[in-house]
């Protein structure tokens, strides 16, 4: 445990060593949030109800998406695909530490770092923009929001690692092409910038069974009180289902990949 705590601390030191890089990353994050917020603000200023969303619900959705991006989607473990592609994975295989635990620790450190900066940023933005934020109505909703969000972060960890294993078979461009497609799917299907239930019902049925919607859209819906108790329980079941599926799939593909691994570039 001690060595993982050390990795956690080193991750923070590493991120804060390249300060300009980190500051620029935060600026990007704020601009991305503001772009989305101002876009929706302009739409709700002209339209008071869009697919059942009033201005407060929509603007709260955008604020929560900002939080969930930092909590669920921010990670550094995506660089594992580069380590597989360029052969650096070998360095870890001979060390007395678990490769996944190492990246899970680094991801936790990254999320903690991002959230510690996001918190004052979002408070400042709240006082600047003054939106009417919707709060959860019951403690069950509040607890479910946080539990589902944490489970979503774990799903994303396995899902993202699964994407990285593509580099075992296709190390060209450090495995980036498949990740690019994955990022685009995530952008589209997670509902990070557009609430998915604005789309036609037929498309919404596809979103419902896609794992991506359980990363941002559904935690958001729980907070906003747009799901009843039965629907929240259904979200729990689906989240556990996808967690088990991706954990199993990831272990299986990793075992296959490691047999195929030949440390290219070493």
């Amino acid at each position, binding site marked *: 445990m001690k060595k993982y705590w050390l990795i956690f601390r080193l991750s923070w030191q590493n991120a804060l060593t390249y300060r300009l890089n980190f500051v620029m990353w935060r600026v*990007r994050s704020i*601009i991305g949030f503001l*772009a989305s917020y101002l876009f929706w603000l*302009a739409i709700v200023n002209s*339209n008071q109800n869009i697919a059942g969303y009033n201005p407060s619900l929509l603007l709260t959705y955008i604020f929560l998406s900002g939080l969930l991006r930092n909590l669920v989607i921010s990670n550094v473990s995506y660089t594992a695909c580069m380590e597989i592609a360029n052969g650096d994975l070998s360095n870890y295989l001979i060390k007395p530490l678990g490769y996944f635990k190492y990246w899970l620790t680094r991801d936790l450190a990254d999320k903690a770092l991002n959230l510690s900066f996001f918190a004052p940023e979002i408070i400042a933005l709240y006082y600047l923009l003054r939106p009417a934020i919707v709060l959860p109505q019951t403690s069950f909703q509040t607890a479910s929001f946080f539990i589902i969000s944490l489970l979503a972060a774990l799903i994303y960890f396995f899902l993202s690692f699964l994407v990285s294993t593509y580099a075992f078979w296709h190390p*060209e461009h450090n495995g980036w092409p*498949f990740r690019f497609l994955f990022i*685009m799917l995530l952008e*589209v299907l997670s509902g990070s910038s557009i609430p998915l239930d604005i*789309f036609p019902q037929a498309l919404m049925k596809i979103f419902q069974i896609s794992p991506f919607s359980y990363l941002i859209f559904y935690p958001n819906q729980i907070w906003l009180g747009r799901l009843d108790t039965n629907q929240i329980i259904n979200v729990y079941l689906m989240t556990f289902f996808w967690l088990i599926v991706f954990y199993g799939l990831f272990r299986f593909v990793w075992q296959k990949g490691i047999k195929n691994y030949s440390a290219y570039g070493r």
Partner: protein
Amino acid sequence: MNLKRYLIYWLKTSELTFESLIADKLSSILFITGKLLRFGFMLGFLFAIKEKIKLVSGYNIDQLVIFFLIYNLFDLAGQLFYRGVYWFRSDILSGDLDFKLVKPISPLFQILTSHTDFLDLPQLFLVIIILIMRLPHVTWQNVLVFSLLSLISLLILTAVHIFVVALGVITTEVDHTIWIFRNLSGMAQVPVDIYSEAVRTFLTFVIPIGLIFTFPAKALYGLLNPALIFLTISFALVFYYLSLKFWYYSLKTYASASS
């Protein structure tokens, strides 16, 4: 400037980039699929809200679609020709910029055009086809002004990329800077008029994405008066001149570290 030499250089680097894309077809297909998916999603969103909302700051959804398509037109043009900027940071860190500086061809031209991104072509063709299909009747005068402002947009886009490269030479930071511009320019997927006065002014005259993406589309609808057209051209020329000044200044700070 020997234009023929520059044309040969651009054709050669483009040919090499194209060959590398052909050599790895699966990667190219994945990239193109991702780009088309993103484009289709936003277009789908605009069509999805067509029945649910009437106007956004005076624009109907059909007009917003045209603004979105024209945004894509210039955004893709910037990426198609100036993708080299995304590779520039490694040149600074490794000191490989030295090799560009000693060649008898503008280093700025080499940096900007080193990777012509052919992967943007399928989306560009799609954008042009949809634009032609959905374009309302426009007068030839508006088309003329649109053409003029399109050239001005490309000039401002070039200047923005020069600023990013120059900033990269000074700070070694390129990737985040270009992505901050891309994130900001995403706000121009819709006309910048829909934002508040302060935001609109910022997006027009500080980071001129309004001039690049919104103004040509407004010209097509005849929504720009001659004073604004004159102002845009003047701003573009000054902005481009300043970007070149900044580039030459940045070269004085280049220390050729790591080379």
